[in-house]
């Protein structure tokens, strides 16, 4: 298990990511109903009792740095405008004109001085209040309301969050232990280098599941067995969210130690400024030496690892922020995969890939990447994700088969079981799932 190096403790011990193993949740071993992934009524239940009640990741703060910058993001059948205000705050509104219901902005990012509806030019200030209604005197009933329909919006971790529930709990309460775990990485120092949405032919949960267990590594990512330890993994389930910690820059116990340093581990060494040439025949020494090397050279590389444990300098700390944000977090980069349900089809979802790299002190913040959206298979999204993506439509198809009884989940897939328990608590109330319910 990854743990802090006791003989060479990092510079601080407060405000660091907890490494302790969380108590194992008591969860039944029963089959998980496949209809949860395919049934339209279940999808509606998810919308009414879960998606509409929780905090949702909308965009990154770096997407909207200046007053008037906005992002229109979609969740289910709704579209939301996230708007940077003159005072630096971010506010969220339904992306809809109060006149006849026209959508104000297409999905995507932009900059506006005001939001003018294209239909009859009703116009709104950045704070959502009416700016101008053409021929307003022809509405004897007056204006319909004060302006755009505002919804709760808050920020954490350089991310902008919103909720469709006006009475939602504070974001900090929803996020629970997440900030304590992830703030030490200092996400505000990491610049986006990838912004992609892929349309996938699977339920959003089929995609979430694919990232919440390491059991599939030996199945569809055999090359990663020479990159990480897929067997000795710490799984931690919290109230809503969960994580696992995977040692990187090491070998799976499933494979023999090769003489050469595997390509993936070489890459990690080079990124950390280490020369793999010294490690021929010594791959087992790499992980610890890479941690020490990164710690030692961090100041000259303009990096601050003072709040990170040694394990965090190499390993993959993978988090699920319930229900749909999966994150691979590393000292020098992190990836957010946001899976969004389709508006009406349980067999489809949107898979958003947002990746970020640490910008060392003194280096210029790079320009944001161009946003790309395409259907699965039209373009490569990298070897590992291609392997995941290629697999998912088949999983979804099988979920719809009469010959499939349901999900048969093992210990390595504990996070999937935990995820479904949390989902049930939203759908049926804590512990209130009726017998026979999906």
């Amino acid at each position, binding site marked *: 298990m990854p743990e802090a190096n006791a003989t060479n403790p990092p510079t601080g011990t407060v405000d660091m990511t907890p490494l302790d193993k969380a108590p194992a949740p008591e969860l039944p071993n029963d089959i998980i109903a496949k209809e949860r992934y395919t049934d339209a009524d279940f999808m509606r239940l998810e919308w009414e009792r879960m998606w509409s009640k929780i905090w949702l990741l909308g965009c990154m703060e770096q997407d909207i740095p200046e007053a008037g910058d906005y992002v229109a993001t979609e969740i289910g059948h709704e579209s939301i405008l996230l708007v940077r205000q003159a005072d630096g705050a971010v506010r969220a509104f339904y992306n809809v004109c109060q006149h006849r219901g026209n959508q104000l902005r297409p999905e995507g990012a932009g900059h506006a001085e005001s939001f003018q509806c294209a239909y009859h030019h009703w116009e709104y200030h950045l704070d959502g209040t009416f700016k101008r209604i053409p021929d307003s005197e022809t509405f004897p009933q007056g204006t319909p309301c004060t302006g755009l329909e505002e919804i709760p919006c808050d920020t954490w971790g350089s991310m902008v969050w919103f909720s469709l529930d006006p009475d939602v709990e504070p974001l900090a309460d929803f996020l629970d232990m997440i900030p304590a775990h992830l703030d030490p990485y200092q996400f505000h120092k990491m610049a986006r280098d990838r912004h992609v949405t892929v349309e996938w032919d699977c339920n959003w949960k089929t995609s979430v599941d694919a990232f919440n267990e390491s059991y599939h590594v030996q199945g569809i990512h055999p090359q990663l067995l020479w990159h990480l330890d897929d067997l000795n993994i710490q799984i931690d389930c919290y109230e809503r969210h969960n994580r696992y910690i995977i040692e990187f820059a090491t070998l799976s116990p499933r494979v023999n130690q090769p003489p*050469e340093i*595997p390509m993936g581990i070489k890459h990690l060494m080079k990124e950390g400024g280490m020369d793999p040439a*010294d490690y021929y025949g010594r791959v087992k020494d790499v992980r610890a030496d890479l941690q020490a090397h990164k710690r030692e050279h961090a100041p000259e590389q303009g990096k601050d690892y003072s709040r990170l444990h040694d394990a965090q300098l190499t390993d993959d700390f993978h988090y699920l922020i319930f229900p749909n944000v999966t994150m691979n977090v590393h000292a020098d980069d992190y990836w957010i995969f946001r899976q969004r349900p389709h508006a009406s089809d349980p067999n489809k979802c949107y898979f958003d890939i947002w990746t970020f790299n640490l910008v060392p002190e003194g280096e210029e913040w790079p320009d944001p990447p161009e946003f790309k959206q395409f259907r699965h298979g039209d373009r490569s999204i990298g070897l590992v994700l291609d392997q995941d993506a290629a697999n998912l439509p088949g999983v979804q198809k099988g979920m719809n088969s009469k010959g499939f009884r349901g999900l048969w989940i093992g210990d390595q897939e504990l996070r999937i079981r935990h995820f479904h328990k949390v989902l049930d608590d939203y759908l049926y109330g804590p512990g209130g799932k009726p017998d026979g319910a999906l």
Partner: protein
Amino acid sequence: MDLGLKGKNAIITGSTRGIGRAIAERLASEGMNVAIGARDDEATAAAGKEIAEAHGVKVFAKPCNVKDAEAYKAWLEAAIEDLGGLDVFVPNVSGGGGMDSEKNWWRNFEIDVLHTVRGAETCLPALKESGAGAIVIIGSTNAVETFMGPMAYNAMKAALVTYSKQLSQFVAGKGVRVNTVSPGPIYFEGGAWEMIKGTMPKMYEGVLKQIPAGRMGTPEEVANVVAFLASPAASLVTGVNLVADNGFTKRVQL
């Protein structure tokens, strides 16, 4: 055919696993006493025990880092003394492939080339005394045909082929033969090709397609060739580079 190795002594460097281990096993199976070693203490002890038990021969098994010139020389001298003379020397250790930095060049020079040269110089007096002394250097088909990239490994293996031939002329009158065995792709558990098959399956398949017989070699097959060249049965053969690659290389060797 009796190779005539029984009761003779051999030193094989880098011999706890892979090709080196197979050579040690093969020579021991012929009744040779063997000196084996690698950097790892435990692996060396374990391999020594296994070889001794399997073949009932005398085994000198001590860890050895060939990069440390003095320690390496002392290790060779201790082995020769312990075995009571030397007939066969197989410098097998390699610094491996890679084009990561200039360090690869220094590594392959120091480990592949210098370890062979230093080893030969230290062992030659004992090999001359043997009357049937043989050095078998381990080359690579990467030296004779372009492979992967302009790696230090390939160029340094080529240096060994040249060194081997010229050394063979230099010591021919002293009753010592010097030959090189150049293996093609050799597959074994824990070998580089096993990893390449797992991590870069397309590259693995591509190389496999270049082998007309459709399979890579095994360490045991390389060991057979080494055993022959090391033995008095090959008394006429010196200065050759014997390619053992199942047809992987395509050049005409005249």
